[in-house]
């Protein structure tokens, strides 16, 4: 099914924020907001749920660490115990540094990859911008027409009041 989108284009973060707040008060569905940089307070304004990434990263890091400890113990004490400088086969203290490094590696890589996955970012992906310039100096608030109560003129007016640069309307065949 096709969708009807209204895009308010702004040129500063102040009015963008205001626009988002306003649209939510009017009960419009804010599909997304596009900005050239991370504007503070938009997530609250949009009412996005806090990211669960930290927990995931924590888990991955833990996994990495425990795998490494096990591996080091297994290789030096179980699989082929060798007498190195009279040290015991299982010299745990000596295993700490590598374990730590591997933990960090797992956590970091995990974080980044999951970020890419969740945001569906991949090389040579074709960027679809609502309006040109949102990576430069434009801010865009995208609203979707959900039901018949949705009144385009009203939307237009609301944006204009918040000194939108312009307002566009787009029909898309994509199922968002």
């Amino acid at each position, binding site marked *: 099914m096709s969708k009807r989108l209204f895009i308010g284009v702004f040129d500063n973060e102040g009015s963008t924020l205001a626009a988002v707040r306003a649209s939510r008060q009017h009960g419009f569905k804010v599909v997304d907001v596009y900005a050239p940089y991370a504007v503070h307070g938009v997530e609250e304004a949009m009412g996005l749920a806090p990211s669960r990434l930290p927990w995931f990263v924590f888990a991955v890091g833990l996994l990495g660490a425990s795998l490494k400890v096990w591996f080091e113990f297994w290789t030096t004490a179980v699989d082929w*115990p060798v007498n190195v400088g009279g040290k015991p086969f299982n*010299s745990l203290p000596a295993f700490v540094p590598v374990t730590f490094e591997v933990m960090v590696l797992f956590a970091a890589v995990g974080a980044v990859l999951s970020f890419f996955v969740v945001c569906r970012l991949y090389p040579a992906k074709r960027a679809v911008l609502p309006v040109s310039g949102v990576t430069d100096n434009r801010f865009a608030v995208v609203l979707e027409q959900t039901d018949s109560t949705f009144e385009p003129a009203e939307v237009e007016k609301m944006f204009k009041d918040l000194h939108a640069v312009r307002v566009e309307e787009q029909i898309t065949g994509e199922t968002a």
Partner: protein
Amino acid sequence: MSGEKKQYWKTLAEKEGGPEFLRAPAEELSVASPRQFRRRDFMKATGFTLGVAFATGCSRAPVQRALPLLSEPEEFVPGRSLFYSTTCAGCSAGCGVFAKVRDGRPIKLEGNPEHPLSRGGLCATGQASLLGLYDSQRLQHPLKEGKKVSWLEVDRAIQAELARVRNERGTVRVLSGTIPSPTFRAAIQEFLRGFADARHVVYDPLSKSALLDAHAQTHAMRVLPHFHFDKAEVIVSFDADFLGTWISPVEYTAAYRAGRDLGSRHVSYHVQFEPRMSVAGSKADQRFAVAPGEMGLLVTQLTRRVARKAGAWFDESEPESASVTPAFLDELADRLWQARGRTLIVCGTNDSQQQVLTNYLNHLLGNYGTSIDLERPSLQAEGSDHELERLFGELRDGSVQALLIAGANPVFDLPGGEELGDALKKVPLLVSSAERIDETSALAKYVLPEPHYLETWSDTEAISGMVSLRQPTVHPLGETRTLVETIAAWSGKPRSSYDLLRESWKAKIFPRQKKEADFETFWERALEDGFAEVEPGSARPQPFNVRAVIPVLHAQSLAANSFALVLYPTVAMLDGHNAYNPWLHELPDPVTKVTWDNCACVSPATAGRLGLADGDVVRLVTSDSKTLELPTYLQPGQNERVIAVALGYGSRLSARFAKIGPQWIDALLSVGDNGLVGVNAAPLLTLSLGALQYTASEVTVTRTGKQRELASTQTHDTLTVPKRLTPRGSGPRPLIQETSLAAYRKDPHSGVEDHEEKEDLWPTDHPYSGPRWGMVIDLNACTGCSSCVVACQVENNIPVVGRDEIRRNREMHWLRIDRYYSERESGQIEVAYEPLMCQQCENAPCETVCPVLATVHSEDGLNQQVYNRCIGTRYCANNCPYKGRRFNWFNYAHDDQFENLVLNPDVAVRSRGVMEKCTFCVQRIQEAKIEAKCRGERVADGAVGTACQQSCPARAIYFGDLNDPTSQVSKMMADPRRYRLLEELNVRPSVGYLTVVRNRPAEGDERSKEERHG
């Protein structure tokens, strides 16, 4: 998704471009593709396929062939070593050796423990003599005027010329070094018999002539006495380096060590008077740096004191006082008299007057018959410088028709080599029998290639009555022939050296013994033992002739700023006939630690006065204006008026070493400006008063301003760190721990630093249940002779790296001998030697830091080094407190295929970039373990011997299983004298050292005082 999908666009350009982009291909295809494809894309494709080709190509190892023998001898098993007992010919001392032969090639020489003289020891020269066999520049066939010819040809030609000489009743001379082989001597006599005027002239480049002459005067028999250092409680040596280079060092070292056994009641007291620091001097309890001009005076003074006590005749005129305090001489004379009959005086100078006085001393002290044996004299040196002088005369006036030079190199090692060379050119028939083309054989009309002693049958009578055999251990590698065979061939009855030897033994040796009735059994036994003891020669000494004694009353005084020159042999080079041997050039001199050079040794004080530093090239000018240019070396403990220069260097045999060692942009040659290793000092010798003079007075020293950095393996040489940098209150580092005999007798543990075993942080996971290898080194016994260093090099395929690499402190010897000086209050310089190899630490710091487990601990306590696993981070070497590890900085040359035959097949040849080190000769340990295992026993004590231990003449090294309480090494580990290096680090080395014990009765040695009174 639905087909008509709305397109977003960013810029107008793209909007335009879009459809065109879609349209484009159809048009361009035809024109574009071929040209486009042809270029680098093609390369890409081929590159890929090439890669595949490699992947498939490199999967097979090269094909290896195996050629078994066609018919295998009984005892021969591929991969097993056989040991043949034979006799070393590195010098004329004639030590007994076992030749280790693997798959038909000798790969190692081991001392024969049964041999009554060498007692299992073998010196550096002896160890290295093996390489001579595989020397690719050895003569392989006879030469006539420098051209290769057949033996038949040579024999015919020479026989013809000899016949002519015989008919013309011309004079024939044979010139040779000392020939200890009775068979050979006989053969030469046989050869000379035919001629009207024929004589065999014998000379020693390191002449003992005066010593023999002296006995001719005093005992009416010109012999070299046989000295028994083990029977002497007081040893006084006047410039005789009997532990390093004098007559028979291995035998003397063994005896000397026996005489200094701390267990026995008497520990010999050794006093040395010498101008320079010799090996023997470095071991002396009392040592005085005496100018050579004063030596005679000293002997006289000592003699006069002893004579007084003996109430014997001595010239009454008072000699002037020498530099040594009368008090000390009195005390010494005292002790000599106390121990009379149990003392020994030796004199190393080639001055018959001094030798006669020495004989008189020995006579007064009743040493003849006890510590000196004239009944069974030594035949290790019998050269006569008188004879030599006569021959020179004859040569000069060209009266010699035929001269046969047997293995000697007079042009190189005698004074006036040049003139001699010219004189030799005048000899119509000059034949030289030599192993290599040296200075002399280069002049000879005919050169007869001598085989290496491991290729042929021969014998040696080092001590009258002590005959040892030499048997071939390998099929001759060239068309060589012993002179004995050659002479036989000339005489018209050609026989093999085997037959000739047996003949002469049947005729001469066999009758001199009673034990065996049957010759064959006698021969077999002798062949198995490597030697036979028979009746000595018949000559009997006459009673001492006092009239020969003439005291020396005055010291030769030196002009103000001139010096006395002392020419001395080094342990490695001796008279220089080994100059072809890279192992010996690379061997650090025991005292100076210099390699690949000889140098002008001066005392630090003198150097300070002349403003000389190590490496400054100086010009020495003698009174007869002969000159020599060499780099300076500051030698502590040397007399201030003496310049000492080593003989045996600058031989043309060493020309080959120019490019030895790795060659890269910054590499320097291993030879000097003369294209040779070192410079020949022999021209500065003088042949006067019927003796070769090894000292010259009135030598002036001038600096040339040139520099030549010496390749010395030890730059810092004191026990203490530089004064300026010594932290307050910290004494010398306890690396050498020593005590005096007195203190030792009171408390054997004296002088040893105590360290309580630290508590371990770790739980111990490593019980050493099986054997646990360990080593103990007796620093008191070690003389620093360095035979272990070469033994290790031979056994473990250690490469020769050349002068430049050593200069960069990159020598590869796994075993080094640290030489430490320390100064006594009296100003005397004390020396201590410390052999240092990998200490096989139980808590090895090197192991923990290796990232790839290339060095780890074995279950029998070895610190293993896995060459093929090592990636060469050098972290282990950095973390080794003993610096016992060696790194392969380059791919060290093993490209002389012929020389590679000497490589030990049981030890891997290490590649570039790999760390290596001593592992207690693990290949030998493995062999012993496997043998024991096959018999289902545990390795017996003594079944494994490391190369260094085996070859040590002083038996200073003990090795074995520390877990076996009965083993000798664990007994030694328990010795109260035992300490470990850097014990405070708690790395727990498996190598222990035994303290140095100095016998200093003068310094309040109660026990010895008792002896004196009692």
